């Protein structure tokens, strides 16, 4: 399809190598106006998708990083207490009635907008809202999200319901540290982001590091692919591949051999046990791919 091809091409020029499946899903998300849930191992470029999509649509990216204990106040809105208190103090001697004063300090001027409210109230263009690592937030927070995702509105008790003028384009990412609720899943399109195959990874490396030597790139992709099949504690993601490529570039290496791997393993593997294990293995096997 033409639209999908052009979307793919556009993401490509922005530096993101998207496969047919992802491009289809993104197209569908924009068309159906449904949120998209991306799951996959850490470091496979889930967050990056939101970044390039915002760039592609030339709109604002609003990001909400989830963590345990994330609540309404830090995700949707909070009253500006200081301003409210000051306002009361200033108006202490005015003639306004109690009710008027109260209405005044619970107005829109006294609200601090947090990411979700900001995404809903965007005035010019629908923003891309990235809700990152939703699995880290609590289940209660998921419930807050549901209203927003399905009806594109947020309820604030003192102000009433705020409806979006331009419904945001929502992307959720999850690392699967916790199972998400079915209710949330059902409101989203789903896409599993896998580790890339060698060709795609090679394309990504070339794209991000245009100056890299062909031989080096091929070798390093081969090594990374081999490492991923090794049942490590934390398999290297694409970001690690790029890190490694950059460090090899910086060291001026033209070729990878066992000693190079040993010296630079730290930018590829991020756990001591993994590093120790690989160091003691036969590194030439990892280089040539004979498993």
């Amino acid at each position, binding site marked *: *399809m033409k639209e*999908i091809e052009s979307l793919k091409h556009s993401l490509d020029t922005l530096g993101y190598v998207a496969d*047919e*499946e992802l491009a*289809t*899903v993104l*197209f*569908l*998300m924009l*068309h*159906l106006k*449904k949120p*998209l849930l991306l*799951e996959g191992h850490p470091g496979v470029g889930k967050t990056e998708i939101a970044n390039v999509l915002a760039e592609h649509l030339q709109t604002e990216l609003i990001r909400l990083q989830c963590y*345990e*204990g994330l609540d309404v106040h830090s995700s949707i809105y909070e009253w500006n*207490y*200081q301003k409210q*208190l*000051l306002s009361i*103090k200033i108006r202490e001697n005015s003639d306004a009635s109690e009710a008027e004063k109260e209405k005044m300090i619970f107005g829109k001027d006294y609200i601090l907008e947090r990411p979700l409210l900001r995404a809903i109230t965007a005035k010019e263009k629908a923003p891309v809202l990235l809700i990152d690592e939703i699995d880290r937030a609590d*289940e209660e927070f998921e419930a807050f999200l549901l209203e927003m995702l399905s009806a594109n509105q947020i309820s604030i008790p003192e102000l009433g319901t705020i409806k979006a003028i331009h419904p945001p384009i929502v992307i959720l990412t999850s690392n*699967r*540290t*916790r199972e998400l609720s*079915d209710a949330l*899943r*059902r409101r*989203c*399109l*789903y*896409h*599993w982001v896998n580790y890339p195959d060698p060709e795609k990874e090679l394309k990504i490396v070339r794209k991000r590091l245009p100056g890299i030597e062909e031989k080096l790139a091929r070798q390093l992709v081969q090594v990374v692919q081999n490492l991923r099949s090794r*049942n490590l*504690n934390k398999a290297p993601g694409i970001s690690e591949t790029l890190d490694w490529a950059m460090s090899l570039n910086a060291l001026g290496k033209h070729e990878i051999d066992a000693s190079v791997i040993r010296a630079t393993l730290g930018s590829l593997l991020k*756990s001591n*046990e993994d590093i120790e294990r690989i160091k003691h293995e036969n590194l030439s096997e990892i280089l040539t791919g004979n498993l």
Partner: protein
Amino acid sequence: MTLPHHLQYHNITEAILGFAEYARSCELNVGIRESHEALEIVSTGLIENKQNFRFALKSLFCSSQENTETFDTIFDLFWGGEKAEIKSKIEYKNQSNIVRKSSGSLVMMNKGSSTVQEEEEGKNVSGANSTEQLRKTDFSKVSDIESEQLNKLAEDLWKQMSKRLRKKFRKSVTRGKLDLRQTIRSNISKGGEMLDLHYKEKKPDKNRLIILLDVSGSMDKYSFFLLRFILSLRSHFKHIDAYIFSTKLIRITEYLEIKNLQSVLEVLSHYADNWSSGTKIGECLSDFNRKFAKRSLTGKNMTIILSDGLDTGEPELLVNELQKVKLRTRRLIWLNPLKGMKGYVPRTRSMVAALPEIDHFMSAHSINSLLELENILYDAN
């Protein structure tokens, strides 16, 4: 039974609805809304390219990675050209699934050793309140068929328990109390008006749990379930430190990060020589005290030992090491699966010697007995 196929339908709308229904019958989460949106996909023209059409429907009908395999199979089946070839694929897939599952449980639970009498006891579990029964059933007397049910039930109940516990703990972690002194002090410059509120510091995380699981031969029938239990606790407690021991001690905390039980077992099977061998609790505890205790025991945490106490080492050593652990821990809990047996009295030298050092001595042979742990975990906070 003939399998549904798109050629059976008159037009594309009916075919899509038929496919949605088929997907639903294969336990994919497809409702009216999904069917409706699938029809919308057709109107975008995505159907022109079969590959695009597949991807589009996949993102709509699947809600987790596990679904994608099922989806691909039924998609090929429904929208494919030749039926017979794909059908055989499904059968093959199902077979491979079954084999994998049973071999997984065989590794851990030595079914071969169970006697006829034991099996009979296990079979009593059926009837209207089978769930209630199952909760009380001894893990060692569970038949293969029931173990599947039991796993599911246990998973649910433990999940609920962890969730409750976590909610209870949460209260103390949100925000400290109002620090009145500091608030007044910092607001003097604002004319004594309380504009900036100061809070006392958050309480530090206290729910650190140390678990030592005995995986020796005598614990064979329990260790699999207990490992599951630890795993489900792990998904809700941030600070769990877990070890397995038999003749030597191994830290498994890192492996618990991988939430999938199957992969945890795969990783642990590297240490197979340790699994199902004899027990030297005293030596393992001394190992623990030497290597890990300084790092993980803070004096405010709880230590749980899961073992049947059938020890081949010296009781004096065990007592000595237990005392060391106790000095650095708030409560020492010993869960013994044998305690669930009728008329069990701790008789082994080690167990008798260890008893005075233990705060709580409880059974751990069934789901219910493990759920009782909840109250202790809560009290300790």
